[in-house]
């Protein structure tokens, strides 16, 4: 069975005392630039192509939110590279300013637990930068791992999966969309209220209200359930990078693991030719409906006036995947855990609540309601926001962890991941960071340009090669070049 390389990019929400959205790009730049020494401070954009569509065309421009379009009117524009403020970390991760949000993109990982932990380690990097900025400015800086501002603005947490191009758009769409629609039941981060869709008190997903399209290349506005961006970060003749934009930023690493693992199950089923077939005519509306079914099994309308529940869809994937992934202990465990959670949701809620972000948040926020008080209030939304605050003393998720109700890896367990690349090609990127900017002229997901004794040379980082552990100890460019040439 093919191992699937995956990564997660999270755009963080943040506030600086006395500052606002007009200042957000400059403030995100300042926060990102508080990264410590030991990073590379550039990114190689030669192989980036966000306007290319998997369906074989390229759009002239991507849609943007008209509200955001006015923020920078009349301001002098800095060069794009200045605005981005790119950093490459010793673990092979990328940290930069993306549309006014500090974005941490994990190094690409094979393992589910490995990726969930790298995602959680990213929180430490971002909050450490925020702390340094706060000390410099003498102002409070708060960082939120969420996807919504409750006023109609959303910012993303995207997943990337390396898949063979031979699978093609149509098969990927059919295999993924039903799962993405149903997935919030087990992976949503929860949200009080609604933004742009039908009223509700509380829903499972941070992001569900922000999707209107079935499939498109856009990510900033008129967002699709299935994003068709064709930017493989690998040889394009062989690979697609499946770019999933419909997921939430999870606080619980176990939710992050489940979010990624479920997509991997769908991909393995597709590659084995046994993926369940569900035809959902309006997946964006269906996902919003699923998100609202916090007190019921929910309903998903299917083609032909039929309907089903998100649980049935999820269980169809789990059942089909059992024999396909039986040799993979991590994916097999994921299937068992998902079955248990679906069974526990209504019958043994204690076994569900503290394993799923939205359920833990709903349980906690219910405690604050006075008899007769409604959910859809600013006070409840303020508590909702506090769930996502990355502060060990004030955050509500961190409060659940401190109370021993939710398991979260310790700082001591996570911090080493910020300087240790996972297995795979991130090891080569990490080695280039250690060699520094005197040696590394350019670096990206799929390539390095190094200054060798024979001049500047480009090295490809094939995504499916075996990268030896020797890369962790590389101390000169000739040694690194020899390893990369031998892949």
């Amino acid at each position, binding site marked *: 069975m093919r191992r699937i390389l995956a990564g997660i990019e999270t755009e963080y929400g943040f506030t600086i005392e006395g500052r606002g*959205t007009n200042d957000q790009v400059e403030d995100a730049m300042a926060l990102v630039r508080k990264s410590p020494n030991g990073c590379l401070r550039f990114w190689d954009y030669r192989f980036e192509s966000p306007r290319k569509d998997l369906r074989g065309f390229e759009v002239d421009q991507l849609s943007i939110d008209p509200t955001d379009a006015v923020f920078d009117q009349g301001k002098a524009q800095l060069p794009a590279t200045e605005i981005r403020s790119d950093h490459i970390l010793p673990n092979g991760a990328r940290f930069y300013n993306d549309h006014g949000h500090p974005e941490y993109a994990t190094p690409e990982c094979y393992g589910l637990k490995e990726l969930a932990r790298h995602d959680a380690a990213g929180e430490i990097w971002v909050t450490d930068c925020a702390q340094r900025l706060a000390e410099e400015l003498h102002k409070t800086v708060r960082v939120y791992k969420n996807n919504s501002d409750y006023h109609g603005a959303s*910012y993303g947490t995207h997943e990337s999966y390396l898949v063979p191009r031979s699978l093609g758009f149509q098969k990927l769409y059919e295999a993924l969309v039903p799962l993405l629609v149903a997935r919030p039941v087990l992976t949503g981060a929860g949200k009080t209220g609604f933004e742009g869709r039908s009223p509700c008190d509380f829903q499972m997903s941070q992001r569900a209200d922000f999707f209107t399209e079935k499939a498109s290349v856009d990510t900033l506005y008129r967002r699709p359930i299935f994003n068709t961006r064709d930017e493989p970060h690998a040889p394009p003749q062989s690979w697609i990078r499946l770019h999933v934009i419909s997921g939430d930023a999870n606080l619980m690493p176990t939710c992050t693991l489940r979010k990624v693992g479920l997509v991997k199950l769908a991909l393995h089923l597709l590659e084995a030719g046994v993926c369940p077939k569900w035809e959902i005519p309006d997946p964006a509306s269906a996902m919003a409906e699923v998100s609202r079914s916090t007190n019921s099994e929910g*309903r998903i309308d299917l083609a032909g006036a039929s309907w089903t529940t998100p649980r049935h869809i999820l269980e169809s994937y789990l059942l089909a995947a059992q024999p396909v992934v039986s040799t993979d202990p991590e994916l097999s465990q994921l299937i068992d855990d998902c079955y248990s959670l679906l069974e526990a949701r209504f019958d043994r809620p204690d076994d569900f609540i503290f394993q799923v972000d939205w359920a833990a948040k709903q349980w906690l926020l219910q405690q604050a309601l006075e008899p007769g008080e409604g959910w859809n209030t600013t006070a409840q939304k303020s508590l909702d926001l506090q769930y996502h605050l990355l502060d060990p003393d004030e955050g509500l998720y961190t409060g659940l962890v401190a109370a021993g109700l939710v398991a979260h890896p310790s700082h001591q367990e996570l911090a080493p991941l910020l300087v240790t690349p996972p297995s795979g090609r991130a090891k080569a990127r990490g080695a280039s960071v250690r060699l520094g900017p005197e040696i590394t002229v350019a670096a990206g997901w799929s390539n390095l340009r190094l200054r060798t004794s024979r001049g500047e040379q480009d090295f490809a980082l094939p995504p499916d090669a075996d990268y030896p552990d020797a890369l962790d100890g590389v101390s000169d460019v000739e040694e690194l070049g020899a390893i990369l040439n031998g892949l």
Partner: protein
Amino acid sequence: MIHADRTTKPVEPQPDRKLNDEGGPSKPDLNRPSAPNELLKRMKNVDPDQAKKYRQRSGE
């Protein structure tokens, strides 16, 4: 500063819709344990207006 609300008004108001009215099978809420005092104290300290002030730019 720009603080205009975005287009977030409900596009299809459904006044008759209730939480357990999706048409799918539903189950009642169950009794659940209460949060520890330390956690309740954290919740009491939260600025009840912070969500009103929290504004972000759209990202991807």
